[in-house]
Structures are given as structure tokens and as C-alpha cells.
């Protein structure tokens, strides 16, 4: 089944601020196998000039609203999670995310286009703190495999 174009242009926003915690950063760093002291040791992070533990650049993906930054549980969108693979990902950071940040992420579905039998979804992310500081932006491309209608 094809995806619902009515969702293009809509914003999805974190319902509550995403509270970045030290243990969360440590666990994410451990999960990517990275023992950089700035991810684990508060003193090391402060000595390097950061206010607290630094999050790995790709940690930003955990702060998007819901799964994939999309209303995946809304049947009207028509997205089958099992058919989705990641096409592209990009982040641009004004500063690193650090423990103690409270992030509000706005995800915008900017387009759905058919490429062969696949559908390609492009989503942009804007990461701000609750005090309005712009931290980062991201672009995500997802591929919904085999859901485009066959060409007539």
C-alpha cells in the first residue's frame, strides 16, 4: 500500500522535552563501543571545556519524536515499519549535545516520492533547547521497500 501524501508538510514535535541524562549518554556510547572519556567522565568533559558529558554526534537520532520522527503508529500514514530501511542521514551541529540539555525536536515530513517500486521519505529535524537555543538540524531519508504502486 502506498504512503499517504497528506502527511507531507506536517510537523511532529516532542510531546515533552527530551531530557538528556548522563547515564543515557554513557549507555549510548557503550552501545556504539566508544570509550571516549568525554562521553563517560564528567571531569574529563569539563576539562575539555564542556559543561557536562558530551553526547556522540549521532546521539541526536535518539531525540526525535516517536519512532523515526514520524507518526508510525497512525494507520492513516500507511507505513510498515518492517519494510523501512534507512537511506541517508545527516546532522549539522551548532554545538554538541551535553548532559542536562532539554531538547524539543520538531520533525517535518518534507516529501514522499516513488523511486521504482520503493517510496522515499525525507524528514528534517530541528533540535532546540527548551530555552530556544538552536542546537542542531538533521535530514533523514527513509526507504519504504516495495510500497510504490507499479507503473501503469
Amino acid at each position, binding site marked *: 500500500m502506498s504512503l499517504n501524501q497528506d502527511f507531507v508538510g506536517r510537523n511532529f514535535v516532542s510531546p515533552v522535552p527530551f531530557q538528556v541524562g548522563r547515564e543515557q549518554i554513557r549507555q549510548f556510547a557503550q552501545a556504539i*563501543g566508544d570509550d*571516549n572519556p568525554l562521553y563517560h567522565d564528567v571531569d574529563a568533559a569539563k576539562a575539555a571545556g564542556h559543561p557536562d558529558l558530551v553526547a556522540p554526534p549521532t546521539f541526536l537520532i535518539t531525540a526525535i519524536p516517536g519512532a523515526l520522527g514520524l507518526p508510525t503508529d497512525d494507520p492513516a500514514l500507511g507505513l510498515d515499519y*518492517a519494510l523501512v*530501511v534507512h537511506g541517508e542521514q545527516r546532522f549539522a551541529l551548532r554545538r554538541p549535545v551535553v548532559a542536562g540539555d532539554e531538547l524539543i525536536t520538531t520533525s517535518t515530513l518534507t516529501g514522499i516520492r516513488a523511486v521504482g517500486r520503493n517510496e522515499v521519505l525525507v524528514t528534517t529535524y530541528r533540535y532546540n533547547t527548551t530555552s530556544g537555543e538552536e542546537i542542531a538540524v538533521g535530514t533523514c531519508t527513509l526507504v519504504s521497500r516495495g510500497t510504490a504502486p507499479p507503473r501503469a
Partner: protein
Amino acid sequence: MTATVGYDDVEVGTELPERLFPLRRVDLVRYAGASGDFNAIHWSDRAAADAGLPGVLAHGMLTMATATRLVTDWVGDPGAVLEVGVKFSAPVVVPDDDEGAAVSVRGVVEKKLDDNRVVVTLTTRCRGEKVLMAARATVRLS
């Protein structure tokens, strides 16, 4: 926020030597937990087969994190990373065995920009195949 690599010490063509990062099934499970991405194609052979995939796949974001690590380890301070972007060009199939999949990453300084910034291009392979394309990071050196 200070990189341990000096802008004046690198030139276009400066290499970040290749490293190998093993990804095993347990690493995918751990990443699922830490990232909140519980898509079953990243841990269930049954789900991967049902989705027509060649096997359980590493999360693209785990591969991206692994590639990015070459850069953050190079500069020391991950806060020096200003931009990172990749295209996922081939899946990283992670078998349920002791070895898993070995992901190799190497980098080269592609451009020197103003304000002490450089662009590093990353080459990331698994079983000889490029799993990322157009993988680049912009970092601020000291």
C-alpha cells in the same frame, strides 16, 4: 572544545588510518536498547527473512556511529564535529555467530575550509563492499 589535531598540521590528503570495528548480534541488541530502535529486522532472523532481507542487519545509525568514531577518535573532542552525513549504500548483515561482521573505516582529509574547519571523507566497508557512500564529516581543528 579543543581538537587535539592542529589545522596547520593537516593537508588535503592527510589520512586517518583504517580501523576494524566488529559488530556482533549482541552489539545490535545493545544499540536497539540504547537508541530505542527496536525494529525486529535488527535482531530477529525471522523478521529479517519475512522482510525479504539477506539476514539481520545492523542499524544504519550504528554503522554511521562507527564511521563517525574514526573522526572523533582522531580529533579527541567529539564536540569538534560540526557536520556528519552518510548514504547507506549496502546493508551490514550481522550473522548470529561469535565473529559477527567486521566494519572497516578509513578516512582522508578532502578539503580545508576557513575557520580551522576540514572535511574528512570516510570509506566504510563490510566484506569488501562499501556500506556507506558520500560519508563526510566536517570538523573544527585547533
